[in-house]
């Protein structure tokens, strides 16, 4: 089966991470696994049988495979929660065994399902764990918590003193991500990070992770059993079969269009042209720019402007340029625009068309509001734009 594994090819293409066009420098570190084996006493087959893999700095690499394939074991060997039986793992060229376990783990973010926040600690204390272990002073920790809550889209003053049980599942998971990033580690390990939340929340959290990664450029290794999540989040995907044998290691585009073998093809599943919608991102298509208004603007003026533009609804932004609602003109009452009730379902500019379609279907506008970094408003995507894009793709395929 050696022709189906491609670690060599992968090591050659590590130079330029696909996300490097965004702002911010790569702060991640390269991870190299060399012939890593994990055997458990009393079991014939190795849980991980000789995994060799290079994870390029600043990329999101998804470990995906059926349950029991050794993906979580492989992940946990990187922060030494599980010690390999043999083989070496290097982070930024340094063997991970050259420092103590605890020293190592404080430099690696660790995010697991549901956030696994400590219920007896406030949000602030949860996030502050690793900085405290590293001996940061009080004011630096305080500032860092503010910065991180802002980064994951939670109002710091409102949430810092809450306990986990006062948060929704999605909010807990956001705090979990903030905690993993607390000490600005070059490497972040995630184990089924969004497995415990509902599909809509999951989609938002995935978008937020992509948005955060655009700013930070960490090296993120993420385990999932969900191929759609892998396609959406991964710069690269490692598809593993039993014993953590690499079936294919490549970009999502290649995995979808040229699966290495039947196993990969089966795993990726049918409907690959629909899945291709998971590859195209909102940023690939043209956005529409309907009338916008800020909270507090005069209703009369906004209405007039919208009519002039031929719009029947306006996108309302808050004072930081984040969309908060998309009311129809007839819903605008009173003198001033107020913050609309209910949560606006928006999509990130890096969302896949698949997710964007989901959001459009749940919106009465047949379209979705698009946001960029830190939830800044960018425009609106609608069905027409998506179908035009699909038609273009079909034409390209036909040629």
């Amino acid at each position, binding site marked *: 089966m050696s022709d189906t594994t491609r670690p060599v090819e992968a090591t050659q293409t590590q130079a330029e991470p696909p996300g490097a066009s965004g702002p911010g420098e790569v702060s991640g570190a390269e991870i190299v696994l060399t012939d890593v084996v994990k055997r458990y006493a009393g079991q014939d087959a190795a849980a991980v049988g000789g995994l060799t893999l290079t994870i390029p700095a600043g990329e999101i690499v998804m470990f995906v495979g059926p349950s029991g394939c050794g993906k979580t074991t492989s992940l946990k060997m990187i*922060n030494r*929660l599980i010690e390999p039986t043999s083989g070496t793992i290097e982070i930024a060229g340094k063997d991970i065994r050259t420092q103590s*376990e*605890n*020293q*190592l*783990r*404080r430099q690696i973010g*660790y995010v*697991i*399902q*549901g956030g*696994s926040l*400590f*219920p*007896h*600690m*406030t949000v602030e204390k949860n996030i502050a*764990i*690793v900085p405290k*272990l590293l001996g940061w002073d009080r004011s630096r920790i305080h500032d860092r918590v503010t910065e991180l809550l802002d980064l994951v889209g939670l109002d710091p003053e409102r949430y810092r003193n809450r*306990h*986990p*049980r*006062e948060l929704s599942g999605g909010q807990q998971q956001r705090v979990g991500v903030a*905690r993993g990033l607390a000490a600005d580690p070059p490497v972040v*390990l995630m184990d089924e990070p969004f497995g415990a939340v509902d599909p809509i929340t999951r989609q938002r959290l995935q978008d937020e992770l992509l948005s955060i990664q655009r700013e930070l450029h960490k090296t993120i290794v993420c385990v999932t059993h969900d191929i759609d999540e892998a396609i959406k989040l991964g710069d690269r995907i490692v598809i593993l079969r039993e014993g953590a044998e690499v079936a294919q290691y490549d970009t999502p585009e290649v995995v979808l269009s040229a699966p290495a073998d039947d196993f990969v093809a089966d795993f990726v599943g049918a409907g690959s042209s629909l899945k291709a919608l998971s590859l195209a991102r909102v940023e690939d298509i043209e956005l529409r720019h309907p009338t916008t208004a800020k909270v507090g603007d005069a209703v009369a003026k906004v209405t007039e402007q919208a009519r002039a533009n031929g719009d029947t609804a306006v996108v309302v932004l808050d004072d930081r340029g984040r969309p908060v609602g998309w009311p129809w003109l007839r819903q605008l009452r009173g003198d001033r625009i107020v913050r609309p009730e209910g949560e606006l379902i928006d999509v990130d500019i890096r969302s896949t068309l698949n997710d964007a379609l989901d959001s459009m279907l749940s919106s009465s506008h047949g379209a979705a509001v698009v946001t960029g970094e830190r939830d800044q408003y960018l425009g609106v995507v609608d069905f027409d734009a998506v179908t035009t894009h699909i038609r273009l793709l079909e034409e390209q395929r036909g040629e």
Partner: protein
Amino acid sequence: MWNFIHDRRSEIAFNTYQHALLVFYAVVIATILAVVIAVVITRIRGLDVAANQVSAIALTIPSFALVGLLLPVVHLGPTIGLVAVAFYAVWPILRNAVVGLQGVDPILLESARGMGMSEATVLWRVRLPLAWPVILAGIRISTQMSMGIAAIASYALGPGLGTYIFTGLSKGGVAANGLNYTVVAIVGIVVVALIADGLLVLLGRLTVSKGIR
């Protein structure tokens, strides 16, 4: 009855105070012992079952008999009382501490280790705070139990409300204030027990994190 109390008020107050103090010291010692033992037990597989059996058996030893057993070993009076009461107070706390420590979600422990906490830090900042409400419930049970045992312990050794019970018993019946002695002892012990329980509830309010209450 009123005259009886009035005539002896300073003596009653002193004995009540002694009784409360004995229980307080015994429970503090028992708590420390029980938590330390529980931490050891939960690290070694299979030991928790043994501990439960030992504690079940230990609680069946009649306290009167234990005082007798201790007499030749520990010579000083008040120390026997303390040892005897603490002996019984350990078991409910130990049982709860084991249950509490074992009840901490293993995912949380892995996540704590995954962030680079040492074993001691995990114990101090994660396991004990999460187990604390259960341990505290054990302390409340032990405190109530110790109130009665302290009364018996004081048979051998002086101060405490228990002396009144034995005085009452030896005088017998209504004659010579016998009943008065017994009633004062019972009421005194109940009042001390209620106050102690109230203080423990307050302690819980102050020390159990709002996030797990």
